[in-house]
């Protein structure tokens, strides 16, 4: 490392580890089945030509090797548990451990989705209680927890928008999406059969009201808006946005990816939103797990309730809960069973641990942290939009680009300082974007270390740009050749005997 030593991290030894297949040899085993209490069977007689002869190159290893294998792999990952993970729009907050404990209780972890309702009251109560909490938090009227992730929630929400318009005679043709939106928004609109029309942001980084006014007409089914948007800016004219849409019969869809800026402070249902999704793996602390599972509940206003996916949970006359499948106007089912139930358990445990005061304090701390970073780095990095920040702040690499250093280089250098990078190159409307979301989970000390690291990197750019452009320097592997990976994809391991020989 250079003279800019980091206070946060120190290099230390970690173990090498090959692929599990490279450790396999016949006769090793990590499993043991009990003796059969029923007569054994002749499998070839039972299955005939359906019987499988070989399991190919599946591994044969012992239990200790598996423990070491995955433990070693785990040490090659960065994680929230190790430190600040300021990925903008991803809300990498602390994942409470009690959530994991309660989700593994016997009746919760092992309940079958088709077991009788009589012995499913616990699960139904969890679904109902979480639903009620989320409705209160969003200010909406009805909800489905079925979607498995945020993008799946968008899909479900837009299906309901479409069903609503169809019930009025026509599905309409297009969906308006701001140029700052996440890529899932346009991809979702396309899956639901809508054309996408771009909506330009104004110089403040917000929806341009005049543009919306001129683009809005009876062909527009909905506007998909993230609020606060991906610049971390609250859409201050949200009421006008909603009015313009509603005047022409359009609906306002809110992408709730950034709900961590709003919980307990303002409710989307109160500012004109008709339909929105939440990401339980962002705002409600369920673990990201290296890319999932997520959960993407969709909350709607009364007018969209008839279109919710089946089934919905209802209270019965005898006080018990049950599933209702008789919903003739429903958009149908978007996933088998009831969704990622295990994530509901965790999100509810988080909500109960917070209560109304904790939820509000959480939001306040998230916004406080983002503004503290903004203050610390203003002037050091270019701030393309000066509108006030909520839970995240977007800088750009404009100042550093003069020395040929881009956002990805700065991000990679941050790794050497012991931090996970911020989100790079997004939103697309900011060239060289550096999108920083600290969440409420960072202490003042961690934030100070981050600001110090970023300033130090900015100084390195002036003194030794090459050092930054070739970062990271302390990781197991240096920057990887992504072009080669895509040009000739190797997507699975093969034993040497099956690999093509270079002759």
């Amino acid at each position: 490392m250079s003279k800019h030593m980091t206070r946060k991290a120190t290099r230390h030894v970690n173990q090498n580890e090959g692929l599990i297949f490279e450790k396999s040899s016949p006769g090793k085993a990590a499993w043991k089945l009990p003796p059969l209490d029923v007569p054994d069977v002749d499998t070839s007689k039972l299955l005939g030509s359906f019987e499988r002869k070989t399991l190919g190159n599946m591994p044969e290893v012992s239990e200790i090797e598996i423990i070491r294998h995955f433990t070693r792999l785990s040490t090659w990952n960065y994680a929230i548990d190790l430190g600040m993970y300021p990925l903008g729009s991803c809300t990498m907050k602390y994942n409470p451990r009690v959530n994991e404990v309660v989700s593994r209780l016997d009746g919760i972890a092992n309940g079958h989705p088709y077991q009788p309702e009589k012995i499913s009251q616990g699960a139904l109560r969890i679904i109902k209680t979480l639903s009620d909490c989320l409705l209160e938090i969003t200010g909406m009227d009805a909800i489905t927890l079925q979607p498995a992730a945020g993008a799946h929630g968008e899909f479900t929400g837009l299906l309901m928008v479409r069903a609503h318009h169809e019930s009025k005679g026509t599905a309409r043709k297009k969906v308006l999406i701001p140029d700052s939106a996440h890529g899932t928004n346009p991809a979702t609109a396309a899956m639901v059969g809508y054309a996408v029309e771009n909506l330009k942001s104004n110089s403040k980084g917000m929806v341009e009201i005049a543009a919306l006014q001129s683009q809005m007409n009876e062909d527009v089914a909905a506007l998909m808006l993230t609020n606060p948007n991906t610049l971390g800016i609250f859409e201050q004219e949200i009421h006008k946005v909603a009015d313009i849409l509603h005047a022409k019969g359009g609906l306002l869809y809110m992408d709730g990816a950034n709900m961590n800026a709003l919980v307990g402070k303002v409710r989307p249902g109160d500012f004109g939103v008709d339909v929105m999704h939440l990401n339980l793996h962002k705002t409600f602390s369920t673990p990201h797990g290296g890319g999932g599972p997520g959960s993407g509940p969709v909350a709607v206003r009364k007018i969209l309730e008839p279109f919710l996916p089946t089934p919905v949970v209802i209270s019965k006359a005898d006080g018990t809960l049950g599933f209702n499948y008789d919903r003739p106007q429903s958009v149908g089912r978007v996933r088998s069973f009831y969704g990622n139930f295990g994530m509901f358990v965790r999100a509810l445990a988080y909500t109960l641990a917070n209560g109304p005061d904790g939820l509000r304090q959480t939001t306040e701390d998230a916004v406080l942290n983002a503004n503290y970073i903004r203050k610390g780095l203003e002037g050091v990095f270019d701030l393309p939009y000066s509108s006030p920040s909520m839970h995240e702040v977007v800088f750009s690499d404009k100042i550093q680009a003069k020395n040929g250093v881009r956002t990805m280089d700065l991000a990679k250098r941050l790794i050497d300082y012991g931090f996970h990078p911020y989100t790079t190159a997004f939103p697309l409307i900011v060239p060289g974007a550096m999108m920083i979301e600290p969440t409420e989970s960072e202490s003042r000390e961690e934030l100070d270390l981050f600001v110090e690291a970023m300033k130090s990197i900015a100084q390195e750019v002036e003194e030794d740009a090459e050092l930054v452009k070739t970062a990271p320097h302390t990781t197991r592997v240096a920057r990887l050749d992504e072009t080669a990976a895509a040009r000739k994809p190797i997507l699975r391991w093969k034993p040497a005997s099956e690999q093509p020989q270079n002759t």
Partner: protein
Amino acid sequence: MRYLPKSPADRQAMLKAIGASSIDELFAPIPGEYRLNRDLKVPRQMAESEIVDWFRERSRENGENHASFLGAGAYNHYRPVIIDSLISRGEFLTAYTPYQAEISQGTLQSIFEFQTMICELTGMEVANASMYDGSTAAAEAVMMAVRLTGRRSVAVARSVHPEFREVLATYAFHQGMPLTTVPFTGDGRLDPKSVEGAITGGTACLLIQSPNFFGSLEEVEALAEIAHRKGAMLVVSIAEAVSLGIVEPPRRADIIAMEAQSFGVPVGFGGPYCGVIATREQFVRQMPGRLVGQTVDRGGKRGFVLTLATREQHIRREKATSNICTNQALVALMVNIFMTIYGKVGLKELARHNLAKTAYAVQQFGKHASVLFPATPRFNEFVVQTSEDPYAINSRLLGHKIVGGLPLKKFYPELGNASLWCCTELTTRSMIDTAVGLVAESESSVNGSREESVEEVAR
């Protein structure tokens, strides 16, 4: 609030540094009329001990300590304890999607191993990093076939999981993809002749499930032949992954859409589970979902990265192969560890135990009631037809803390008093004997009362 790492003094000092007089100043961008000036009406803040107690109570109300014969897309297999030890490591549990490869090699290498093992087990050439579940994987696989063939209509076997078919219908409807349902016949699976008629020049693919919803093994080879002859693709859904230990995989399928829940994932009231799509190399660019590929770093050292991202929404936006972003990574890791534990020999033995339990149960039930599709090879599920309404029998069985098979009336009214039973390696002989005993009692009392009423009429 115990998750928040700040003292009141920290907050004051930070506000001062920012130059704000109060926290409310930071929320000033939100128009005043919308700001919430009251507490949210959610339960009060609870201590950890209270939270654990609250969920223990819910667990007790949710069939705790019941044995079960339910399968139908959610299978109760033993989960080796090291799965949870390993996935509980914070470095796996609390990491994000591995976009920053240099500090995500653990997740990336494990996904690469997952893709490899899914390929080995399914007989396919490439597999993705996961989909939400088996139902959405099947729907996405069908849409992939539509893109690959340029044809729009889809033939779906009625022996595919009814909820998978419902999800497909939801996905297909707004894409303008007409669905045709192909019926099953007296042996509980598709009849190649009716398939022949259902596939036209406009059919993109035939979607089947094998083992199918009734546990029967479809004639995949013959169906593939018909589909291919007509220029359509064969998409095979596999809902019970353990079957792959002993049942020949559908090697002639073009796309396999799997639910891997059976591999070490808790039944968990329906989720989270782990869908996967596997296919041939030539179709990879139309495959949805994340993919991990092997490459090298500047020093020539082996490493792994997310690759072929130009298929995905964050690059391609409305032209992406799917809108999927977050998938089921941690669940895929459970599946990966499970496959590693059982491996080449264990998976086969495990599947054999499932077969043995099922064969015994089928034989015992068959003594007293009618087991449908008796001659068709099956894996670990079977359909029992009783004289009495299966809900009534199940409710008596529940008194023994045993959950009986799934009554099929809701999905297949034509099957009458039929229910779908599942045995896994965890099903005990005594459970089977108890259930069979109750079915036997039911049959003899129904037959007895029938004789009585006949007598009455005669009198």
